[in-house]
């Protein structure tokens, strides 16, 4: 598991399920130069 991934234990219908929640779902960095159509 890398440092950007957090394990969250969730209980669904009584059964425990480990849900991997990665913050890449929440934060994404893209270069300001990373969009095509700019010279």
């Amino acid at each position: 598991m890398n440092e950007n991934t957090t394990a969250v234990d969730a209980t669904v219908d009584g059964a425990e399920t480990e849900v991997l929640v990665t913050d890449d779902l929440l934060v994404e960095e893209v270069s300001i130069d990373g969009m095509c159509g700019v010279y």
Partner: protein
Amino acid sequence: MTVASGVTDPHFDVGRAWRLDPQVALRDEEFGALAYHYGTRRLVFLKSRDLVEIVRGLEEAPSARAAIGQVVDDESVPAYEAALARLAGSEIIRAA
């Protein structure tokens, strides 16, 4: 992978107060917000409205933990702590 080498702050202290860096502009979008640091030219996408609300709430909150707790429920806390750590690593937020 389209994600640029994002850094997370390994020492992110969720118990202290944080603020949006004064050189950062937040632009609201339907999906969340764009955060741009004029000094470093770094561009970061905040991909949930909840995260945007948390970041805007940092200004008044006594700690990052409190800012998160105001917006999301307990099971989501670790994900948002990690997200704030990423934002700290990208210099979008800084310790108050």
